């Protein structure tokens, strides 16, 4: 049996889902859209196991967002693969009137129903008493009082699921108005719908219905025009009718003890958290804590993961026979996998914080506070948290944009977040700054190097705001998106929810993004390890000559050989090929190779530089490579390679360029296609190129 949970946002629907399914749940996407699909299994008292699906929160079956459209599609279309056998409508008892609107619509679809009155604990505290028996009698469905937060009467709900009828026995609430009857009959027979309200819903949203062919949509459009059907007028009429019905229900079944009106705790907290001064001060403090945590708390586990992978690598090299297979496994796949797993601590921490912000109700206040400011540059109040997270890493931040309901706001946030200087740029900046910026202080106070670093962060942020502002005018927004949003009451975070959200996001990242990263890592490995066979063979012969072997120590020789191999690999050839294009930026072919390999991840720059200049050293050991890069000279002119102009040009390039496979992969996943990652890669590359060109030509 398939059971679906339906309800308004903030009704405790996901808490209930978590209680019913436990860790026994699966998170994915609905086919074709990036709407979270959560499903799991639940064992009933009689031993039967039912599947439970948590549908996205919505206020009515007239969808205003992608999330809501999914609910409407699934519930009204009996042929939909997710169409449930039983629906549990979860309502917040403290806000019964608004919640029952959705119930009354779902009830008319002719699916067996259970009404779960959630937040019973709060209702009792506020002295709201609902006569569940009476309500059950009037509606003709089982009504169960629960409190998902306190695990109250979940057993009762499970019993109700077990004893639910297999077909709807309750009568429908709303009768189709005479003026629409013709149209509804026509749709019912044409599309083989056995429920009149489902046919009416189809008439309202046929243009967005995914299961219809172009032909069917056109046909429906004609019907509607013929019958002179005005969707919005009908919706208003129906909504008012339903509320009148609900008012009567509430009058009969709900008893509220009137009490003196006094400011609630939420009001008092809001007075501080949305205050002109304190509101912003506390908000920035919270951001600071999140940013610091993602940066510093993740450091230790990330180092642990890196060490683990280098240990596996070492062991692998020790025990696996040398050869292409071992090389592919260790330098291609394992390196790619390590590059994915290393982000896990940051993702886990950022999402734990985001889940807490959501769960407590503070996220809605952030939106409320920042909306005006962010709207000026084409973003929304909800873009703030992902963009701040971008300072640590764009990958979890882009995943976090799912909280932005408006598609245009969301896409712009995704597009600009990688411009915010992330942690991976830091090693590159540090290396280059230490190369050309003197270790001096201005006015004996400000560290010049620190100021340069700050300047690069400001540059990235200004770039992001600028691009957002341009995109605001270019990206077409969907009509009918409103800001209208509930400010839920403040509640304690539910740690189980926080943990589950964290767990889900980490798993999604590893499974979905990991696939793409590993595939591209392998391609990059092939391009960097192989070259035209004739060239590679001659290198092998060269380093086998006793002359060379005798004049250099073995380790030195190995480094020389690997540097020469890289130079002649496909990546190296590509680096030389793009040299004419990057010359005006002050880059030579060696930097060209680093630019290409950096596409895997920015911090690879340091490692590549180290390999090319064949020095010993890992990413962290920048002292050595710095000296060698400082001494590097152009073989023809004898001029220094890393002048101030070249170094600054390179830093600006790294500030703007999209050099991160993980980000590309996550944008592909979040936007459901290659269009947006391609646009992003394109505009960022152009922007980086032009900015570097200007910087180099000015400083030269």
């Amino acid at each position: 049996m398939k059971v679906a949970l339906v309800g308004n946002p903030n009704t405790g629907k996901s808490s209930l889902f978590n209680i019913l399914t436990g860790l026994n749940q699966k998170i994915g996407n609905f086919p074709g859209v990036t709407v979270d699909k959560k499903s799991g299994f639940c064992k009933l008292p009689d031993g039967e196991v039912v599947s439970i699906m948590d549908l996205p929160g919505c206020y009515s079956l007239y969808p205003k967002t992608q999330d809501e459209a999914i609910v409407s599609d699934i519930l009204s279309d009996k042929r939909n693969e997710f169409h449930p056998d039983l629906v549990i409508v979860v309502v917040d008892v403290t806000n019964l009137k608004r919640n029952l609107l959705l119930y009354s619509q779902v009830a008319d679809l002719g699916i067996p129903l259970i009404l779960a009155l959630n937040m019973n604990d709060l209702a009792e505290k506020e002295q709201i008493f609902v006569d569940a028996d009476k309500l059950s009698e009037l509606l003709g469905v089982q009504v169960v009082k629960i409190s998902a937060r306190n695990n109250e009467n979940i057993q009762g709900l499970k019993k109700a699921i077990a004893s639910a009828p297999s077909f709807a026995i309750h009568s429908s609430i709303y009768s189709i108005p005479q003026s629409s009857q013709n149209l509804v009959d026509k749709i019912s027979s044409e599309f083989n719908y056995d429920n009149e309200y489902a046919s009416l819903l189809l008439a309202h949203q046929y243009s967005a219905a995914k299961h219809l062919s172009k032909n069917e949509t056109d046909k429906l459009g004609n019907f509607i025009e013929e019958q002179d059907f005005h969707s919005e007028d009908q919706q208003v009429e129906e909504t008012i009718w339903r509320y009148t019905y609900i008012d009567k229900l509430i009058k009969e079944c709900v008893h509220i003890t009137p009490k003196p009106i006094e400011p609630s705790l939420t009001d008092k907290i809001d007075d501080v958290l949305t205050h002109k001064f304190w509101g912003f001060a506390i908000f920035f403090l919270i951001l600071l804590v999140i940013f610091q945590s993602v940066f510093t708390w993740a450091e230790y586990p990330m180092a642990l993961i890196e060490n683990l992978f280098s240990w596996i690598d070492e062991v692998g090299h020790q025990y696996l026979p040398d050869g292409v297979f071992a090389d592919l496994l260790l330098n291609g796949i394992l390196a790619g996998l390590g590059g994915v797993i290393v982000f896990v601590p940051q993702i886990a921490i950022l999402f734990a914080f985001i889940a807490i912000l959501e769960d407590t109700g503070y996220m809605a206040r952030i939106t409320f506070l920042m909306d005006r400011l962010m709207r000026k540059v084409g973003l929304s109040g909800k873009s703030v948290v992902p963009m701040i997270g971008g300072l640590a890493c764009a990958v979890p931040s882009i995943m976090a944009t799912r909280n932005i309901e408006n598609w245009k706001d969301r896409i712009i946030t995704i597009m600009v977040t990688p411009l915010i200087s992330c942690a991976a740029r830091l090693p590159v900046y540090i290396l280059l700054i230490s190369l050309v910026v003197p270790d001096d202080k201005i006015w004996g106070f400000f560290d010049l190097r620190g100021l340069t670093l700050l300047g690069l962060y400001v540059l990235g942020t200004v770039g992001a705001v600028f691009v957002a502002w341009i995109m605001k005018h270019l990206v077409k927004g969907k009509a009918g998106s409103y800001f209208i949003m509930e400010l839920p009451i403040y509640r304690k975070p539910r740690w189980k929810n926080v943990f589950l959200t964290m767990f889900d996001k980490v798993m999604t990242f590893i499974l979905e993004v990991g696939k793409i990263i590993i595939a591209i890592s392998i391609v990059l490995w092939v391009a960097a390890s192989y070259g035209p066979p004739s060239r590679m063979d001659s290198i092998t012969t060269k380093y086998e000559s006793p002359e060379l072997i005798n004049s250099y120590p073995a380790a030195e020789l190995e480094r020389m050989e690997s540097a020469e191999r890289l130079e002649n690999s496909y990546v190296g050839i590509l680096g030389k090929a793009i040299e004419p294009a990057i010359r005006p930026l002050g880059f030579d072919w060696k930097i060209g190779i680093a630019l290409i390999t950096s596409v895997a991840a920015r911090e690879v720059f340091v490692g590549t530089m180290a390999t090319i200049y064949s020095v010993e050293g890992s990413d962290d050991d920048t002292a050595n490579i710095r000296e060698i890069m400082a001494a590097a000279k152009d073989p023809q002119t004898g001029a220094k390679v890393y002048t101030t102009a070249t170094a600054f040009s390179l830093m600006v390039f790294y500030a703007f360029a999209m050099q991160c496979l993980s980000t590309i992969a996550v944008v592909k996943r979040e936007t459901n296609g290659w269009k947006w990652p391609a646009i992003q890669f394109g505009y960022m590359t152009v922007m980086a190129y032009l900015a570097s060109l200007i910087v180099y030509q000015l400083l030269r």
Partner: protein
Amino acid sequence: MKLSDLKIGQRGIIKEFTDLALSVKLMEMGCLPGESVCLERIAPMGDPIAIKVSGYQLSLRKEEASKVILHT
């Protein structure tokens, strides 16, 4: 008088809407003709606003609130 003209703490009764599509959304959220609303707070930069309606807090932009007409 419009919803956007209310001062903090001031109450009003919804009379009608001047935007049909918006009215559907607002009604779903409990803002019905005849319903009493109270302006609870205004965001620090003057927009959006938060109102109390049918027992909960709802935030909306001023531009949206200007399409809600109140009884005078």
